[in-house]
């Protein structure tokens, strides 16, 4: 992400320090993570100390200070999905992607996270990829679905 685009986003919020989180969210959604340069630029333009920008960027789960993959895979391990075999689905995801929850692969293809409930327990076990829920997953189907993402 170039600094011009970051400046554009900051200007959209009139450089208001109170819009810090909104600005970070927008950079995060466009760039998928918050590089240090972006944080420094935001800190400088909004006149907010870098320590506070860092504090906020590391506080919320919505922000990432490390690169994220092109596809975000959320495997539900909530109670309902768990009893319907989420563990085996998760094992399969780990096997196919080669990463553990919280990690991103070196090709920046997938980022994997476990979540505790996606709110559609009747569809368990659920795997959510880029916001799209895949319900009633079996390990083999999981592998099939994952291979459809480049």
């Amino acid at each position: 992400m170039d600094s011009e685009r970051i400046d554009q986003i900051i200007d959209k919020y009139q450089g208001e320090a109170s819009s810090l989180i909104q600005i970070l969210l927008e950079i995060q959604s466009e760039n998928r993570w918050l590089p240090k340069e972006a944080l420094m630029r935001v800190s400088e333009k909004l006149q907010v100390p870098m320590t506070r920008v860092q504090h906020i960027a590391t506080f919320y789960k919505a922000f990432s200070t490390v690169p994220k993959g092109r596809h975000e895979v959320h495997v539900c391990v909530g109670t309902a999905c768990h009893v319907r075999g989420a563990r085996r689905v998760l094992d399969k995801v780990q096997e196919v992607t080669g990463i553990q929850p919280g990690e991103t692969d070196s090709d920046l293809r997938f980022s994997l996270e476990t979540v505790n409930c996606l709110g559609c327990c009747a569809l368990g076990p659920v795997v959510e990829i880029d916001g799209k829920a895949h319900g009633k997953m079996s390990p083999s189907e999981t592998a099939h679905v994952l291979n459809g993402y480049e």
Partner: protein
Amino acid sequence: MSKILLNIDGRDVEAKEGATILQAAQSAGIGIPTLCHHEKLEPYGACRLCTVEAETRGTTRLVAACLYPVEQKLVVRTRSEKVDRIRKMILELLLCHAPNSRELQALADEYGADKGRFEKEASFCVNCGLCVRYCAEVKKKNAVGFVGRGARREISFVPEIAARECKTCKECFPLCPTEALQAAYVLADALSCFSPSSALGLKG
């Protein structure tokens, strides 16, 4: 400024309006233990070690003395059985993070805290925020701040600022209740991996 009359540990104490229980107690020579308090800094209320019983109109509450403003006819108990029990627990918990802190050790002896009650998980930091707040409020440099949340919260220096400011300052080190080791370590860590062109200086 109107005067406020309150009672601390059975003694009548006079305090200025807007003062905290801690300030009133200190002016009367009554000691309340604190870790995160510093007179140059805004009250923070992080360590809860200054917890006291405050009684107003018949109801007793546990409050942080460093934050609670005095009020008329307030009755404060700084060493009741309940307060001592709470401080003992806080000390036992803090000691897992900073087992070697002399300040904590001394307080643990005073309150009869069992230093080995919980498994040690030495992070050498109790998140009192003294270094962070001193840098922001007194020095206005913001070289050190908190990162992370909950159990993973820790202090972190911003290498770009630290490289410029910290070498000549280091005033935050002696403030540390865990004996400054951690700030020194984190500072060295921040500076050692710092080069102006490095892209990734932040922890995930």
